């Protein structure tokens, strides 16, 4: 699995070839934002844009996803299983932070009961990430040891723009299979120093950093600390942070019915909402600070305790998109120094 080079032109050819047979997803500019979308031509793709508004999780765990459908007739019910189309898929141009979120999601969808919807899509998808050319002011991925603008965690191939070509690092067999299947487009790797230089530059562009040392130990004991009220005061409970988070995975299950046919769907949901835990006559989280606390502790303690992984990759979307400028890095700083 030796490194390769692919010219920019040949990458376009690769994308166009792939899009003929399989589903190709890539960042696409839509209005003033970028979104991972299914593309039919390399012309649609935007590899140098800003971070996508929504994270990569959507390609594996849809915002609204059918679980079963059914027909009812008098007293009879017929369940129709929602089948996946089984098509191979490729993602081109995912950010390394988004790719790094996938092994985190794999834990929850794969532990104990196996979630076929998520795991099946994971299985048949190859992820080709790209070293970030531009980083956002809100990016703080390098605060996590294994993640950076050029990290390979969760990716099958990693592309780095070295001018005329992309330097291609092979991470997994899945990634290698893409090269094998299109070997005429790839050349022997050279210019490794240029690749290293571009990656180093990308890492250095990430200015925001949060010190995570001591955070877990604080969260182990600070559940009842008054600091939670203080740091969450601004929070509106709008849930933008959870919807746009690449590792948040909480969902709701609802039925939709039209005449005699219906479907059961799961929709992204959020611990930021009061109704999330509302039971008849009992609500364990009546105040917003309790919901805010749940989100932070879930990411940086409960998930760590259960799966030995932090459920944050530093993509910065929650900072970028919060309507009241809540900043998770500041929140962490306050907790650590409390």
């Amino acid at each position: 699995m030796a490194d390769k080079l692919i010219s920019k032109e040949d990458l376009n050819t690769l994308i166009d070839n792939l899009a003929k047979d399989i589903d190709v997803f890539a960042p696409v500019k839509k209005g003033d934002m970028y979104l991972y979308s299914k593309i039919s031509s390399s012309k649609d793709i935007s590899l140098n844009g800003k971070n996508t508004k929504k994270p990569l999780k959507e390609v594996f765990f849809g915002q609204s996803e059918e679980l079963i459908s059914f027909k009812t007739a008098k007293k009879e019910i017929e369940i129709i299983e929602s089948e996946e189309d089984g098509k191979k898929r490729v993602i081109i141009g995912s950010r390394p932070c988004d790719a790094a979120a996938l092994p985190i999601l794999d834990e929850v969808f794969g532990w104990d009961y196996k979630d076929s919807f998520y795991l099946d899509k994971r299985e048949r998808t190859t992820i080709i990430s790209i070293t970030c050319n531009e980083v956002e002011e809100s990016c703080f991925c390098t605060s996590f040891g294994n993640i950076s603008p050029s990290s390979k965690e969760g990716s099958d191939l990693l592309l780095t723009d070295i001018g005329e070509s992309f330097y291609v690092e092979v991470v997994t067999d899945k990634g290698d299979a893409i090269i094998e299947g299109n070997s005429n487009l790839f050349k022997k790797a050279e210019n490794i120093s240029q690749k290293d230089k571009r990656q180093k530059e990308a890492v250095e562009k990430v200015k925001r950093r949060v010190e995570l040392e001591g955070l877990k130990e604080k969260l182990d004991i600070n559940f009842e600390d008054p600091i939670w009220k203080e740091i969450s005061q601004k929070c509106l409970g709008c849930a933008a942070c959870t919807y746009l988070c690449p590792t948040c995975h909480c969902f709701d299950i609802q039925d939709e019915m039209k005449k005699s046919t219906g479907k059961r769907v799961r929709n992204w949901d959020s611990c930021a909402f009061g109704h999330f835990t509302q039971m008849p006559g009992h609500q364990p989280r009546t105040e917003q600070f309790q919901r805010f606390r749940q989100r932070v502790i879930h990411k940086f303690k409960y998930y760590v305790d259960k799966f030995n992984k932090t459920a944050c990759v530093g993509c910065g979307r929650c900072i970028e998109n919060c309507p009241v400028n809540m900043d998770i890095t500041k929140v962490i700083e306050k907790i650590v120094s409390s």
Partner: protein
Amino acid sequence: MENIYKPYIAEIKEIVRETSDTTTFKLEFVDEEVKKSFDFKAGQFGEYSVFGVGECTFCIASSPTRKGYIECSFKKVGKVTSVLYDLNVGDKIGFRGPYGNWFPIDDMKGKNLIFVGGGIGLAPLRSLIWNCLDNRDDFKDITIIYGARSINDLVYKNELKEWKERKDINFVVTVDPGGEDKDWKGKVGFVPTVLEEVSPSKKNAVVITCGPPIMIKFVVLSLVKMGFSDEQIVTTLEMRMKCGLGKCGRCNIGNVYVCKDGPVFTYKEIKQFPAEF
């Protein structure tokens, strides 16, 4: 890969109106294979659904010793239960399960069992009670203390009568003050108070309790006062759930998913949780 969200279809075979807003369904799986092979343990729960309306979570209220059917009891409180409540015998619903852990019945063998229930919280206890009564010789003394707000709020009335008459159970029933009528022969008083009056011995005993959160809280306080250890107190927690499979995140409390790691916990385990209950 199997679709873990696909329910079995079950037919309502019998309906018992327990109170003005609480009902019990006897359900049989339509698929003969499922009907034959379905197995569960007392304390486990399921996701019951009305197709086109949605799913809701409650325990299996019948005993695993009674094969070929399951029962569930629920209160009409929300979107799904309100529709479920109005269904008739012969109607079909969805069921996913059994989910979660169960009461540690093997560890209870050879012990004195004390059941303390309140209102509809008797449902999970009922599964275990009949499980134990169907294997009566495996257990020593069985005490059941059950209470509700008023006479009208008592559930499983026929079974309460049966338990009262049995010589191998010490059965005490109570209603909250003001909930009695002039013919009431049971006790009048809140469950924790009656528990202290009955004062069962902590020796070689396990207490299994379920009811409204506020009742459980005071029952536990009484038990601690009476000298029971935290390990001797077992309860089953209610937390809003959707998937029942440890995925959807809703029932997460502390390091546990109530749907996977629970719903049955000892008081010792519950004390480790953050104070969210």
